């Protein structure tokens, strides 16, 4: 679905060029759930921007197998517009695409139902808790029925218990809708729990790929299974404890 070859991205700063991503090789297959794990500043978000087409590669290429591939994007923050009701927030992508009201209203409601938030449709974002708001943001990303869902640390700002809950729900949603998901996180546990494959990003390079063959469906017990712990151990051993250099903030 997505194929990156020798992909590099360099930003020009006042104090010289700053290499964010270097020679990445990557592929993503249909209906796959892939997690990219890396510490802050390792270039995760830049990679998603490249996949999304929000920024262009400095060298190398990123290709989509389907030319009219549609992509939904979930950010680190819900970024709901406070002056719109929940329903109209979810409908925003459709409105911008020029869909008529009858269409977006029905689709937005359906999308909210998928994340179990349809009861909040007429409310405003300030009435939602952090976790609810992020679920609404997921509904907004799903409303265009995208082929691919990009998620950039969507639950990173939430408390761990809520985060686990939302991840379990996300897996159910994925099982139901059979979307392709590319999920970026700095949590090793989250990456293993969710994905088929964990790609480790370090200093702008994909240093290793770990296939997660833990059987599905996965639930809270998965976290305590021996295979889960073995995977955590494996990835920890790959990721260096101390990054080589402090990187310039982006």
């Amino acid at each position: 679905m997505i194929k990156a070859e020798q992909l590099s991205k360099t930003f020009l700063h006042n104090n010289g060029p700053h290499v964010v991503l270097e020679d990445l090789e990557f592929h993503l297959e249909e209906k796959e759930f892939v997690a990219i794990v890396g510490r802050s500043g390792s270039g995760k978000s830049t990679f998603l921007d490249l996949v999304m087409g929000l920024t262009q590669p400095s060298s190398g290429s990123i290709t989509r197998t389907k030319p009219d591939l549609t992509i939904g994007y979930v950010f680190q923050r819900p970024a709901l517009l406070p002056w719109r009701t929940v329903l109209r927030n979810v409908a925003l992508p459709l409105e911008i695409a020029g869909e008529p009201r009858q269409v977006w209203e029905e689709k937005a409601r359906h999308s909210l139902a998928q994340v179990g938030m349809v009861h909040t449709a007429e409310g405003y974002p300030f009435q939602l808790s952090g976790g609810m708001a992020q679920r609404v943001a997921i509904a907004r990303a799903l409303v265009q029925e995208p082929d691919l869902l990009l998620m950039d640390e969507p639950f990173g700002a939430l408390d761990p218990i809520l985060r686990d809950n939302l991840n379990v729900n996300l897996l159910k949603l994925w099982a139901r809708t059979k979307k392709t998901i590319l999920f970026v996180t700095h949590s090793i546990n989250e990456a293993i729990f969710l994905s088929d494959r964990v790609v480790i990003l370090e200093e702008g390079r994909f240093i290793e790929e770990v296939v997660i063959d833990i059987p599905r469906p996965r639930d809270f017990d998965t976290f305590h299974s021996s295979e889960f712990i073995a995977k955590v151990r494996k990835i920890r051993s790959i990721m260096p404890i101390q990054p080589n250099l402090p990187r310039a903030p982006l």
Partner: protein
Amino acid sequence: MKIPSLLLKTVSPVVLVLSILLMWQLIIWVLSPQEWLFPSPLLVWTRFNELWHANALQHHVLVTGTEVLAGYGLGIFLGLCSGYPISQIRLLEKVATPYLVAANSVPLIAFAPLLLLWLGSGMGTNIVVAAMVVYFPVTISTIAGFHSVSPYHTRLLHSLRANKWQRFRRLELPSAIPGILAGMKIAAPLAVVGAVVGEFLGTGEGLGHLILEANGLLDTAQLFVAIIILALFGICFYLSSLGLEQLLTGPWHHKRRL
């Protein structure tokens, strides 16, 4: 709305007005000042009725009201028209902002005689004076309003590939509205000040003229009538901008943001 808070909202202004009147009357009773120095509420009321029935008030109220409204509207319009481009074009902002701030700290009222000289006396000049004092706070708050757009929201609209108009209509304008309204609230009483100062300089009509006339004749009761009407003007303007704020941002503004 709960009943106690509704009660509080409607009763408290009435209580306030009544207590001001009571204080006023108390001063009259205790100090018994001379009538031309400090008239009683009753005297002011009588004078108001006299003026009203003699048709000596209506025209002036209409003139000042028109000046205030037109000046306020013009000032807001110009403030929005210049505030938006300044907020969007960085170079323009760098060049214009220091002058705007400097111009705002000059007492603009001091320009009124100059305007009178250039434009001649009349309602038009007073409208310009009112518009000028309204213009600066509205411009500055418009710039601040358009700068308050959240970078997360910008990124979202960017990812949805919204065009420039869609970004303006669905993100920038709604983000800026609370700021613009704040400027409009500050500017509302200023519009009244601007119009009255213009009238002071001599147009022969309007409440400002009525004040000058009353002052010359030591008709303090008439002075009070004019002042109270002007105060009511200011309050009405302020309340209507408050109402507009409630209408436009009521359901969501000043609430927790995500």
